[in-house]
């Protein structure tokens, strides 16, 4: 017997957050994201029985099978995970909804649903495993491919890219971040903060496709990211129950208080980016787009935004648990209603 495994406040080990073995390619960025997710879920002590894993169709959407086996999962149709998640959340708003999507699933076939999910600010975490190509259908460009990016067989993308993060900010998203599958130090706190946020948290994670989009000329390759990752901040996620472990000299860090009492501590790097400033968020993304830098970190957050179920005045108790007494008016009220129709 080895050393007892580290447990989280729920008494679960990191292994308890694992799922089936991946069927994605070796070296796929998505697998790294899964590992970072397992770490984030474990560290945040997410209750597996409170989690619902949602996805659409594509390589990315398969990933919900590779973590948290004890949670229900729903692999929906292509581009339609937002609607299914919305329905599920209306039925039971007490669960934590974690959506895993891809760039095709989100920026092409599912762009409409993505936009409307963001507009509604449904309480969920929405991770886009963004590699700029369609993997399962063998390497076509997706709508997040950068202009000028080169396909494996040499074709050049001549169409403008859809910047999911910028789009989300423009649509009024309440939490927008971008990460890189190769930077767990940044991604894990972002994931934890996204899950702590109340509202739609959009996390666009650049995740190189080793089979179809990791060559020279691609702007979504490991090599490109290593050279062009413009990191906005150093991040520490401080759960409310933990003591603050890192402190920075005054003026060098900003704390963003999240809905559940946790804090995302941002340490400024060279960038003077204020993630509470929407205009600044759009500006920093557009500068990156022009310079070819991939801007990563917390781009925008509005911790005060009202989530959809609250806006719909739903009770805290799940609608799905309601019985006849709560849903069906009694005989007298029914009779009064019918009488009012005569």
């Amino acid at each position, binding site marked *: 017997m080895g050393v007892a495994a580290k447990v989280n406040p729920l008494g679960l080990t990191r292994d308890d957050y694992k799922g089936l073995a991946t069927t994605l390619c070796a070296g796929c960025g998505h697998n790294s994201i899964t590992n970072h997710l397992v770490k984030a879920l474990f560290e945040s002590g997410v209750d597996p029985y409170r989690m619902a894993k949602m996805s659409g169709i594509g390589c990315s959407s398969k990933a919900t099978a590779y973590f948290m086996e004890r949670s229900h999962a729903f692999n929906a149709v292509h581009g339609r995970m937002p609607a299914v998640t919305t*329905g599920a959340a209306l039925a*039971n708003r007490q669960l934590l909804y974690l959506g895993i999507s891809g760039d095709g699933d989100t920026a092409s076939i599912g762009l409409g649903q993505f936009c409307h999910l963001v507009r509604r600010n449904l309480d969920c975490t929405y991770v886009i495993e963004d590699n700029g190509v369609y993997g399962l259908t063998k390497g076509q460009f997706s709508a997040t491919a950068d202009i000028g990016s080169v396909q494996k067989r040499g074709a050049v993308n001549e169409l403008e890219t859809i910047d999911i993060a910028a789009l989300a900010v423009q649509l009024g998203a309440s939490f927008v971040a971008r990460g890189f599958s190769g930077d767990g130090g940044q991604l894990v706190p972002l994931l934890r903060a996204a899950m702590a946020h109340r509202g739609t948290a959009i996390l666009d994670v650049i995740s190189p496709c080793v089979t179809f989009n990791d060559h020279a000329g691609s702007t979504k390759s490991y090599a490109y990211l290593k050279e062009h990752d413009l990191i906005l901040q150093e991040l520490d996620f401080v759960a409310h129950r933990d003591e603050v472990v890192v402190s920075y000299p005054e003026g060098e860090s900003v704390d963003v208080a999240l809905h559940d009492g946790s804090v995302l501590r941002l340490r400024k790097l060279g960038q003077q980016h204020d993630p509470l400033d929407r205009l600044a968020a759009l500006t920093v993304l557009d500068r990156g787009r022009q310079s070819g830098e991939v801007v990563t970190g917390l781009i925008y957050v509005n911790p005060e935004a009202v989530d959809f179920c609250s806006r719909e005045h739903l009770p805290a108790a799940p609608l799905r648990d309601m019985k006849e007494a709560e849903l069906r008016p009694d005989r007298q009220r029914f009779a009064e209603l019918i009488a009012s129709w005569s």
Partner: protein
Amino acid sequence: MDEIAGMDLNLVMATVNGSGSQSANLVLTRALFAMGVPVAPKNIFPSNIEGLPTWFFLRANAAGHLAGRREADLLVALNRATFHQDVARILAGGVLVFEQAFGDPQVDPEAHLSTYPVPFGKLAKEAVSDPDLRKYLTNMIYVGVVAEILGLPEKALESALARQFRGKPRALPENRAAIELGRSYFKENLTRSGSLAVHPLDQNKGKLLLEGNQAVALGALMGGCSVFAWYPITPSSSVAEHLTSLSDRLRVDPSTGERRIAIVQAEDELAAAGMVIGAGWAGARSMTATSGPGISLMAEFVGLAYFAEIPSVFVDIQRVGPSTGLPTRTMQGDLQFAYSLSHGDTRHPILLPGSVVEAYTFTQMALDLAERVQTPVFVLSDLDLGMNLWMTDPPPYPEQPFDRGKVLGEEELQGMAKFERYRDLDGDGIAARTLPGTRHPLAAYFTRGSGHDEAARYTESEEAYPRVMDRLRRKLDSAVWRLPQPEESTEEGAEFGIIAYGSSDAAVAEARSALSSLGIRTGYLRIRSLPPGPAIASFLGRHQRVYLVEQNRDGQMLQVLRSELAPGLTGRIQSILHYDGFPLFAADVLEAIRTMEAGRGVRLTSLESDAAVERTR
């Protein structure tokens, strides 16, 4: 037959839509209803906000027939664009009320019409200074004129006004004044001729005037729907609107403002279907209401719900297709499409309400069935049933608790060695499910539209796939008895049988009573659901010749029956097909039967010579 017992009047109001004629027409409808006279109103309206022709057919008949009639006994002509064509609709001896400014109506002197020119525009201009208001009140003036011609009592009009403008008391005086304006103009300037009149009856005790869509909304409320997602589309939008107002009244906690229902206007029908399915998966009773184009968009999601076995209810208020079609006209055009909606092999339970009360009870039943059978369930109504007012008995209070189907909670899982989501343990094809959020290590499973085995594991296995598909077929077959079975009323010694479904019932019932009065006895089977149960084969077996009445071009129900019943039986069926966008009327059925019986060499001479039938043709 005395004049009163035989009373059957069809009033046709030809107006321009967007002019507020609906209020005037509803006041007339409610006035007749208040007099105890059975009414059957049919609103024939264009897909347009303002300016195109619209007709309101208001039939008042002592026999209580609920189908409409085409020809007018009285026409109110307020649309210049259709003036002469509308006048041609008036039966001999009928009445024409028209806008004097339209000029000579060019009536056929042989028709012996009573004609009443009224300067509606001029009267309104003199009485109302606000031009917007004037447009609306012009129509209310004809209510007064018609009331004078037909002898409608003041009390009935006053009660109709109060009902129509309930909640808008400020509108009451000016509308009342407009009606009075019409009455006094008539009394001072015109002389009543002819014998057309409405006599008070006492036949509407306990009856209501309701729209089918209102009944669907009430069914959703009483059936425990707690997530309703929709996208606006004629003729289904009023389901959501009615449900919203019902919920404001009956699903809100007055102390906290909390709502025990989510009604979400989605970005399109794809999203609406997705929300319904997500909510059904998570354990809420969820549904949508849409029409043909919406059903088309929902096809992919419905396949997912079928294959992944997710309770969901789809109400389709059918309109004329294909494509945009005639969005404001009625049709039973989605039957075949809905029955096997989506790619691959699918089959869905279809409920076919034939009345307002059934629109209500079948919606509740659909919510039960969806959870019991774990599958998408369709309720196919149509524009005629959904958007017109129908005289009806009050919807009954539901006697049964919700059927939530096979759901395993923590307690049930406690005693189990394993849980497999798609394993049929009791032979009815239905496997138990768990809901997300169930606190038990066995509870979780992976829901997917891709190939899976009994344990919900991904597989492309050539053994598992047919096993799953066969179980899905068995699941529906074993649930057929739960669906509403056909309703049969067969006369002894019937010469032939008639099969119909949905909103055709009123017209078929009336046609049968006309045939019966001519001594022609018929059998009648009204199909109320698909897949077809054993009663249909039995009915076909007992009738040598059967007419199947449908409101579509291709005989969609016949196609379904052909694919599921023995050819020897379906070979007895001849289609009566009606698809001009108008609601089905008895004359459509009678005319078709007359022609087809004549084609067989059997001349229904009595049918041709009978004056009563002639009139309804």
